[in-house]
């Protein structure tokens, strides 16, 4: 079992959770992820590391309550525990050598892009961070990012923070102003990553995107997370999750991403009010 040390809502939809996992905390690097399972009848879901503290032996995850599992996860409290927490999985983001980087986070992707921005900043890289949200109440990690970036630009779809527009508009503006990036890193909805890559392509700026396909085992065994990159399918869990943004087939990824949408309603309904404590009570079916 993996004890939860702290739970903190970051906004109405997004929760930050600090989990005790000393071995993982020692090894995990920016860009890598974990697979977790809440209890015995839970599913495995992938979540990317937001922060780790090797001394304290903790790994922090940030998630948005969008479906049955993340809604249940959001109800857990400090002192509860997760049944399974496996990692580090995937490859760390290749950040070595970047001198002038732009890190772009869309919505929850901001929390996932944060450790990369921090690593780059701490390694002497000039870092612009551009983040995008629907509205100002959903803005994430503004203070944390301020502390580890050369420049932070926060965009909102509705302009409620006085900065209306998409992350790609901000990126284009920075490029037009002469920002000479040698690395752009985008994390967020597939459609956002698609347009970031389309923005950087004419300039030949190296662009990495962190793909977020469906995963089951997360160890390279089942092929559920395959992503079309160039002419071949690669497995995001072992070959990624970062890929060359100019080679990813985003339309293919978006299509595969909705494959299980019709199941999600039923899962949410069933999850409500279910007691599923890992088979210790011996009462639940199949325990």
């Amino acid at each position, binding site marked *: 079992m993996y004890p939860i040390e702290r739970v903190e809502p970051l906004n109405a939809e997004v929760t930050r959770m600090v989990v005790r996992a000393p071995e993982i905390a020692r090894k995990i690097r920016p860009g890598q992820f974990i697979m977790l399972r809440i209890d015995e009848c839970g599913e495995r879901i992938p979540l990317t590391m937001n922060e780790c503290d090797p001394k304290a032996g903790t790994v922090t995850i940030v998630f948005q309550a969008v479906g049955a599992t993340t809604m249940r996860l959001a109800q857990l409290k400090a002192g509860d525990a997760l049944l399974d927490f*496996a990692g580090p999985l995937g490859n760390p983001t290749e950040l070595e050598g970047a001198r002038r980087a732009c890190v772009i986070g869309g919505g929850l992707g901001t929390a996932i892009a944060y450790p990369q921005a921090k690593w780059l900043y701490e390694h002497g890289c000039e870092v612009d961070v551009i983040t995008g949200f629907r509205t100002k109440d959903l803005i994430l990690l503004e203070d944390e990012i301020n502390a580890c970036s050369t420049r932070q630009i926060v965009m909102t779809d509705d302009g409620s923070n006085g900065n209306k527009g998409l992350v790609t508009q901000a990126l284009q503006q920075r490029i037009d102003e002469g920002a000479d990036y040698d690395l752009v890193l985008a994390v967020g909805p597939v459609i956002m990553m698609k347009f970031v890559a389309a923005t950087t392509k004419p300039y030949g700026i190296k662009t990495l995107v962190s793909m977020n396909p469906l995963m*089951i085992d997360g160890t390279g*065994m089942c*092929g559920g997370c*395959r992503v079309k990159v160039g002419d071949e399918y690669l497995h995001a869990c072992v070959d990624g999750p970062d890929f060359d943004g100019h080679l990813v087939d985003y339309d293919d990824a978006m299509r595969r991403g909705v494959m299980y949408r019709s199941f999600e309603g039923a899962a949410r309904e069933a999850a409500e009010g279910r007691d599923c404590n890992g088979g210790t009570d011996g009462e639940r*079916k199949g325990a």
Partner: protein
Amino acid sequence: MATSYEVNRQKEKVPMPELDPAERAKTFDEVARGYSEEDAMAEARRCIQCPNAPCVGGCPVGVPIPQFIAQVAEGDFARAYAIVKGANALPAICGRVCPQETQCEGVCTRGRNGEPVGIGRLERFVSDWALAHPEEAAVALGKMRDERAACGVVEVEPKDLAGKRVAVIGSGPASLTCAGELAKLGCGVTVFEALHKVGGVLTYGIPEFRLPKALVEREVAELGESGVSFETNALVGKLYDVDELLGERGFDAVFVGTGAGLPSYVGIEGEGLNGVMVANELLTRVNLMKAYEFPEYDTPVYAGKRCVVVGGGNVAMDAARTARRLGADVRVVYRRGREEMPARAEEIHHAEQEGVKFELLTNPVRVLGDDKGWVRGLECVRMELGAPDESGRRRPEAVAGSEFVIDVDMLVIAVGSKTNPLIAQSTSGLEMTSRNLIVADERTCATSKPGVFAGGDAVIGAATVILAMGAGKRAAAGIAEYLASKA
């Protein structure tokens, strides 16, 4: 060896009851129900106790078959179990999933004129009996330990390995066997498993209707009682690496039993369409995650109405029968003929009984999708068998102009699997073949790196449970030898 009972001259095996095909195709309950005590004794009495006992040589872990069968024939099931268990750590599993027709039963003397003795069924019977009578089984095991030499049990040469520690990577059949054998010698064993449940292919791959998971859990729990500890959620190569296990983590030796779990694709257009999956995904969702109980369990599984499974091995049969149970009409597409199918005859027969249809000498050419990107058809071509290839099998060749389309909304690819390169990539000085297989000594399972041993599918590529167990046993002996020489 003379028999102390009258030999049953029946040419056929005593039949084993099975669930009715129409009924069982709707549930995940075990198909084969096992022998009653009377059935088991009648079948055991078909064994003529021939002096050369070819069956023992046919068993990769060397179970003393005539000895245990004689005890079943006499009705001493506890003692029969103790004899089996002495040589085989997982008898309830082997009795169910071994391809006995090419192993012990394939060389049985009775098989020369009629059916061989049902050795697998009897092994299953005694281990199921022991699970139902744990106290009597434990007493018999204790007694057997005292008189082991007398009954000719083949086992690892006894050495005192108290205080030694071995890390076993992976928890499939090769690893579990290796761990069990080392624990018997007093060695401290820790098994590292990447998934949240132990068992490897026994847990995520082989379906409930062939191998109930509760039974795997019980055989694994028995290993735990013998002193083996398990660390799940531990992907070696990421969380730890082999050098670290041998160094700062203080293990004296490492066994790599990581299997061959990486999916292979056919490599045709349209394999990325929605509704197309590799058999490993279907089986993992259903077996490991219990998706057939969705939404009681959170993991869903997509099942179509018309399913095609591509491939002809046991995994293809498992996938086809699983899809059938999820409500699909299922067809197996295989490029060679029935005789060439690598799946066990019994599995093909079971699939057929359950309504799975076969398109033999047929090869998929292209997957067709609709405008939303879901699979809707599989274009195939008829094949004929040409000249033998380097493996000795006749090479299938496409018949020009024979293309046709099967309507499908679910396509499962079961064309084999490859070895995960993670251990090789993260370990210094480990010699590999061009196919990512670990090079290991056939007798001792030693690799090119001192203190590191390997066996099972990680060394020979995708094969059978019992071959993996045989390798696990040899590796335990090899490790024992290595540790004793270092002491």
